[in-house]
């Protein structure tokens, strides 16, 4: 495109947090961030949401943990990872040096563990916000996660919000009848923003062996296959909530990201795309900037919520 690049204002204000641009990396798809240093300039990101952290290190699920599906990926990692202490000791000091906002995805096998993670992290510096992953299987409730009911969502968000000194983003699961009800429950409980969507519960079968293709039988579907579902949910929620919405699900290009903004998201997260192209998130920032310049859009925030439905 032969466009004279005009400066485009990419800054994004979530109210509780100012970002250099509206592109964050999605939890679990960008490791702890540092893995990507060889491939992109971490300072060029709007934010990094690190892999979900439990109080203690976790084993994760037996392999196979991944299976590719048409335009999608199912994962059943089982939130393997270092515990919160190891994160604070070995990783956070490096992330703190970045100009990019660091957001920690908070996990828990029950409400107490979520609270423990936040209590510990509250004592650390260099974290911009928490993203509450309410899709963690609850060990006491037959694996049901808080994200599946407005009641459990409300209770957990309320407790964590009260306990924490930092802004709280609640990350919603798409595996519900009414995403709006859940989002509203999170808002009523005081969340500062909602992020959606987490992965869609799915499975794949190996016909020859007649076994599930994942060690854990079920897993979460992500990638372009779910983008139409994600976009619908973001649109449903954004028009009903006062707090900002962070949209994600299958974003591969700047155009995809801008569609989420048009649907009402104030910012986006880039997930599976980072597996295909480790530099995807920064490319997406660049593509958004170029699109805005080419379309005479002075500030990317002017695109937010501009869907015309009449």
């Amino acid at each position, binding site marked *: 495109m032969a466009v004279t690049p005009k400066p485009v204002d990419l800054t994004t204000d979530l109210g509780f947090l100012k970002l250099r641009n509206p592109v964050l990396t999605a939890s679990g798809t960008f490791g702890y961030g540092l893995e990507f240093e*060889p491939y992109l300039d971490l300072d060029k990101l709007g934010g990094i949401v690190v892999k979900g952290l439990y109080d203690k290190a976790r084993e994760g699920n037996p392999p196979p*943990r*991944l299976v*590719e599906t048409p335009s999608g990926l199912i994962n059943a990692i089982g939130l*393997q990872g270092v515990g919160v202490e190891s994160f604070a000791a070995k990783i956070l000091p490096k992330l703190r040096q970045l100009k990019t906002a660091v957001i920690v995805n908070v996990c828990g096998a029950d409400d107490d563990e979520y609270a423990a993670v936040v209590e510990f992290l509250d004592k650390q510096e260099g974290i911009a916000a928490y993203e509450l992953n309410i899709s963690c299987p609850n060990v006491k409730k037959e694996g049901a996660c808080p994200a599946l009911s407005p009641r459990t969502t409300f209770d957990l968000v309320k407790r964590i919000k009260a306990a924490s000194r930092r802004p709280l983003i609640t990350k919603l699961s798409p595996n519900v009848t009414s995403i709006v009800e859940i989002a509203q429950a999170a808002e009523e409980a005081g969340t500062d923003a909602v992020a959606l969507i987490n992965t869609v519960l799915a499975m794949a079968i190996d016909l020859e062996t007649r076994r599930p293709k994942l060690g854990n039988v079920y897993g979460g579907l992500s990638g372009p*296959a779910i983008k139409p579902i994600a976009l619908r949910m973001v649109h449903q929620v954004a028009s009903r909530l006062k707090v900002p919405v962070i949209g994600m699900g299958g974003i*591969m290009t700047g155009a995809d990201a801008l569609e989420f903004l048009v649907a009402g998201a104030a910012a986006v997260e880039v997930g599976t795309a*980072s597996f*295909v192209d*480790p530099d995807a998130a920064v490319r997406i920032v660049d593509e958004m900037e170029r699109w805005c310049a080419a379309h005479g859009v002075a500030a990317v925030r002017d695109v937010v919520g501009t869907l015309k439905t009449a």
Partner: protein
Amino acid sequence: MTIDRNARLREVQSWGDHFRFVIDAPAIGRDARPGQFVMVKVSEGSAPLLRRPLGIHDADATGIELFFRVAGRGTEILSRKRAGERLDIIGPLGRGFTLAPAAKGRTAYLAGGGRGIAPLYFLARALTAAGAKPVIFYGGRGLADIPLRDRLEKAGFEVQCSTDDGSFGFAGFVTALVEKELARVKPAVVYACGPDPMMKALAAITAKHGLPAEFSLESIMGCGIGACWGCVHRIRNEGGDGWVKICEEGPVFPGERILWP
């Protein structure tokens, strides 16, 4: 660790469903070590979505070679590329083979099962350059599974082939061939790459003979760069056994650290 989006496919050689690609990718070639791998984009669209991991078959300052067998849609798409086309490749990735145990003048056994031969060519070249004596064991179900036998011989390596169906060379599993040879010559080290059952059997054999061994593992990989935690294998660790990312700590592991399913 470079993303080369403009790697030029210089040459394609094929034998049935096996393909050898010679690729101009200087930044990757220069850094590559035997046993490392690359992640290759197979489609521009979203299906298939992920890159495919392929071992580095050879490398020099101008680029790399790949050797692969068509296993599904991704490798099938790849196999239709023609000389002159561009590839999008990330690499070199992972940790390769340790050359140290095969010091000057010593013998090293390299056992490749089917497509598992891919990284062993590069390894054999490096061992030869270091003054060691690689002996390559190359096995497949039948003649069609061991297309590289001429190439290996022309390169001057000592090669012993096996086929399960007895159509060429030793009749039986490559592990049996290795075991037979072990009775004659004991190497300083055994390197292997191939299907899990083969490597598991070889792990038992090398352990029995008290030989150091290194195996290159395979797994479905989401990213190849340590970010997705998808590619884990059970590995013995000082701090206890656990699921270890083979793209980062491997794909090559010492035999004694690998816990087989």
